């Protein structure tokens, strides 16, 4: 099973990379862009068929290594395409 983890800076924590991209888009006159947030994506291929169990394990991985919960949040999704 493939699980996608998107890691991004928490709401309220200034995202310097997102801000730089936002400014660049504005300089190209894409003024409808209100905000850009930069995320890091990890795709994990797990030897596990149960989605709930897989997500529990991944939550633990995020807690122990993948995410710094002082500044970062994450979202999980499954994907067959990747």
């Amino acid at each position, binding site marked *: 099973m493939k699980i996608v983890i998107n890691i991004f*800076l928490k709401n309220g924590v200034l995202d310097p990379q997102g801000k730089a991209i936002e400014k660049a888009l504005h300089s190209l006159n894409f003024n409808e862009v209100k905000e850009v947030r930069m995320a890091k994506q990890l795709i994990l291929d797990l030897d596990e068929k149960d989605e709930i169990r897989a997500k529990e394990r991944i939550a633990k991985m995020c807690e122990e290594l*993948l995410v*710094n919960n*002082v*500044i970062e949040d994450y979202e999980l999704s499954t994907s067959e395409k990747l």
Partner: protein
Amino acid sequence: MKVAIIRFPGTNCEFDTEYAFNKLGAKTEIIWHEQKEFKADLVVLPGGFSYGDYLRCAAIAKLAPAMQGVFEHAKKGGYILGICNGFQILLESGLLKGAMKHNEKLSFISKNQDLKVVSNQNVFLRNFQKGDIVNLPIAHGEGNYYAKENILKELEDKDLITLKYQQNPNGSLCDIAGICDENKKIFGLMPHPERACDSVLGNEVGLKMLEGFM
């Protein structure tokens, strides 16, 4: 006085640190990241790019076997100093509070920087006066210190901020360049005192800082 300097793959300031402490008359030992046990009066986590800074700065270093020795040392109330990447490791491992983000302007900054001594009620800065301005080199891409408001307040209230930037180069909250834990045993800072330890380099102020541990 024995100083253990932990070397991870990607560490690059271990010899400068060794040079500085040898100059002060300390015995030094460089500890490879796979070594679990070691004894020292002071443990130094030097600067560099541990494990290539993959995933996040210092995220992988906190899992190194040598960190078990560092945690043991902390538990016993031993002195620990984390410089630059070492500071990031202390934050990632929870030995100090807060986290590091990319520099506000995203570029890697390598230059000399004026710093203010905020507190001298600790071994690290005991050779200085409160309010002293010192000049030290910085060299980092992720030195933008962040902590929640309640943590920042705790740092202020308990006198745990050691150094502040005079002209904030990286966006750090409250201009923070260095902090310590509440027992004043564990110190982390982004500037490099070990690179300011010889008159040949034009600056010996770092030596005066490290001398505080002797």
